[in-house]
């Protein structure tokens, strides 16, 4: 499963479509409170786009752009954003993940601070889910090596 396909059609079509799939995944993350979507669904679509790259272009070509070390770093960054916002609200004098207190550093009212806080943790969740999906797939497909 790790070798590239030797077919021109599949390689070209997947190379054309991958940027559009990734932009659509970012759209799904950003519109979490207007339409179905949010962090988890957008992260899954982002991870699926990298899986499409692995099965059509080959594993070593994809690893040149997105190495295993970068995948581990992105896992941790996603979790850091999520709990970082929570602890920031704790420091500013509220409960854990109490976004209303964020208006002490951002120049907005309390209701808008809640909306921005939710957007922030959705982005963190999306990055984490994408990195975990890519790491698990590249571990399973090489047999643990």
């Amino acid at each position: 499963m790790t070798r590239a396909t030797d077919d021109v059609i599949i390689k070209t079509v997947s190379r054309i479509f991958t940027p559009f799939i990734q932009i659509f995944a970012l759209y799904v993350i950003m519109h979490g409170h207007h339409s179905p979507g949010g962090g988890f669904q957008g992260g899954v679509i982002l991870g699926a786009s990298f899986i499409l790259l692995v099965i059509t272009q080959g594993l070593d070509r994809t690893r040149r752009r997105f190495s295993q070390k970068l995948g581990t770093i992105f896992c941790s960054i996603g979790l850091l954003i999520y709990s970082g916002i929570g602890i920031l609200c704790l420091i500013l004098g509220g409960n854990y993940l109490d976004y209303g207190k964020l208006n002490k550093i951002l120049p907005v009212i309390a209701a808008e601070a809640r909306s921005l806080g939710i957007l922030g943790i959705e982005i963190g969740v999306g990055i984490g889910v994408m990195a975990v999906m890519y790491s698990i797939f590249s571990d399973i497909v090489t047999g643990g090596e």
Partner: protein
Amino acid sequence: MFLKVLSISFILTGFFFFTTATIGLLRFPDFFCRLHATGKGDTLAVLLSLIGLAIYHGFCLASLKIISIAVFYFVAQPTATHAIARAALRCGVKPWAKGEERR
């Protein structure tokens, strides 16, 4: 009124192509013939149905998004059919000649 009649005719034509594609999927005697039926018939049926739905909704942003789903599907579904046919050829599936039994 004319727009409604046009959209209803597009959706009915799409439903007709869906029906014939499914009947072909069930009744054809060989794997490659069934792949022909579902690969071509389903793609055309989805294209016509989505154009009909976009015309019914009028000219706004949602109709452009529906057209973009149709364009994506028009390119992606024949590629997937080509991938399945290639896998079948590598695995040694032989085409069917007239006079053999169904498989």
